[in-house]
């Protein structure tokens, strides 16, 4: 029998290594008729900010070769509505509910976390989306600076004893340095990667495909970038790594584990097939059985 449970550090045990990625599965309660989220290893909510956000004007999405560009602009209901409308539902889940937090200043991240912690919610932990521009620092993303990453993690670490994941942006020169900074700041795990900076232009009209011009690329197109990032990060830190980026098949899941991931998150693939996470869980069992592997830890980091 294959044992799919994974232990992340000493705080969090997941029933299997398949989670949904932030922003690609709403708050988890949108499609109960299609997906029983309790079968997942966990779900990460859409990133929550201090106040509700409308997001960017259309078009926010464009398809590209083996991927998609998005410029959603963190459209979300804001932390207060989140606490009132979504936390009760998340508290009932048997799977690990992880709340993604975003902000444009240290204070905003802290406030969001304080408000949620104040509810003493039954959630497993947080994922910190550090790919947001820091308004106080001229719009530079938190996630591109080791200093800001470490400081932000430290500030948030002080506010919660729950599992704290820092989600890295691939749009940096040395992702392992950022990962180390998050570890230094007290993160329990690293997830990688967020979307890759990208752009599309209509060759006839010259117009941008996204209203914002530049946006984020996701889907199979970024899988090799994500694998390399996960591999580098896993070499650089001792805390667990969660792999994200272009995962579509069970083979992809296993490749990320071999690159060093403890668990993975499924993003864009949910848009094609909201049931993909659950399908991958059963396929993973058979895949490992064929390999003669009884738990993931046997092959983790085995890429050579």
């Amino acid at each position, binding site marked *: 029998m294959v044992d799919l449970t994974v232990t992340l550090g000493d705080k969090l045990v997941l029933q299997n290594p398949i989670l949904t990625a932030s922003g690609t599965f*709403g708050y988890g309660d949108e499609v109960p008729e299609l997906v029983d989220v309790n079968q997942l290893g966990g779900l990460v909510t859409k990133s929550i900010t201090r106040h509700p956000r409308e997001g960017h004007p259309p078009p926010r999405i464009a398809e590209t070769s083996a991927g998609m560009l998005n410029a959603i602009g963190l459209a979300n209901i804001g932390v207060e509505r989140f606490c009132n409308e979504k936390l009760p539902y998340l508290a009932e889940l048997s799977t690990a509910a992880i709340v993604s937090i975003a902000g444009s200043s240290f204070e905003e991240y802290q406030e969001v976390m304080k408000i949620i912690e104040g509810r003493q919610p039954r959630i497993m932990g947080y994922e910190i989306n550090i790919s947001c521009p820091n308004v106080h620092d001229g719009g530079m993303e938190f996630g591109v600076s080791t200093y800001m990453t470490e400081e932000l993690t430290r500030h948030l670490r002080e506010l919660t004893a729950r599992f704290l994941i820092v989600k890295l942006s691939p749009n940096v020169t040395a992702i392992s340095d950022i990962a180390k900074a998050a570890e230094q700041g007290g993160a329990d795990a690293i997830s990688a990667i967020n979307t890759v900076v990208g752009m599309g232009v209509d060759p006839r009209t010259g117009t941008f495909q996204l209203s914002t011009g530049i946006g984020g690329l996701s889907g199979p197109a970024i899988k090799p970038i994500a694998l390399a990032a996960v591999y580098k990060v896993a070499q650089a830190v001792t805390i667990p790594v969660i792999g994200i980026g272009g995962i579509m098949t069970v083979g992809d899941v296993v490749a990320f584990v071999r690159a060093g991931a403890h668990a993975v998150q499924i993003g864009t693939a949910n848009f094609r097939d909201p049931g993909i996470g659950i399908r991958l869980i059963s396929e993973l069992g058979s895949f490992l059985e064929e390999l003669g592997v009884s738990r993931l830890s046997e092959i983790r980091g085995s890429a050579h």
Partner: protein
Amino acid sequence: MVIEEAKVRSNGRLAQGIYTMELTAPVIASSVQPGQFVNTLISEGWFPLLRRPMSVASRSDDRIGLIYKVVGAGTQAMASWTPGQQVNLLGPLGNGWTVDEGTFPVLVGGGVGIAPISFLHEELKDHGIEHHLLMGARDGSEHYLQHAPEENITLTTDNGTVGIKGTAIDGLKVVLNLLSSNSVTIFGCGPPPMLVALKLFVNDQGLPCQLATEEIMGCGFGICQGCSVELKTDVDHHQPSYRQRFKLACIDGPVFWAHELA
């Protein structure tokens, strides 16, 4: 909303560049309403990666019909599907039209906007609700109906080869002039330029009008936040809000009141 493995029954050319497909999809067929759509998985591989939204154009027993225009790789692939082929559909999605009793429906379709308009036309006929159907096209070859104003069917062509010469809006003015009823509701769907012109016209005339919008969609069921449609709001844009200024075409729409659209 379900994911259904549908089966292609027929697929063929309807007019210049426009195709029609009939699929067996009992579950979707049992509940779909005019104005709703299905999100069609084009390929088991990843090209195209995302599903393609298609309005349901008809329903009979356990079947649904689509009318689609070949504009890119996804619709090109659809045009090559043959009877017996399995197709993964997600649906029915979206809100659909709402027909209020007591007003005379005028249906305005252009291009592949004829899909949701045809479905509404058939449903109204089935329910014995009198209405007028107006279809616009650039050229007569794009039409598949007969111009028959006396039977409440008006066609327009930009080049005058069939029906009234002019745009769908020109046709609408003629139709509205002929109507005795003074209370109409307009139902519109078509290519972006037609939708813009229709919106301006009905808002200017103060006519109630429901428009089916076509936004690029990531998921089709509300989880990606990709399909934003801008609405007119009294909300101060500096006040934080969610889904007041930007609604989502896939769950708040695709049908919106014209006077609400920005």
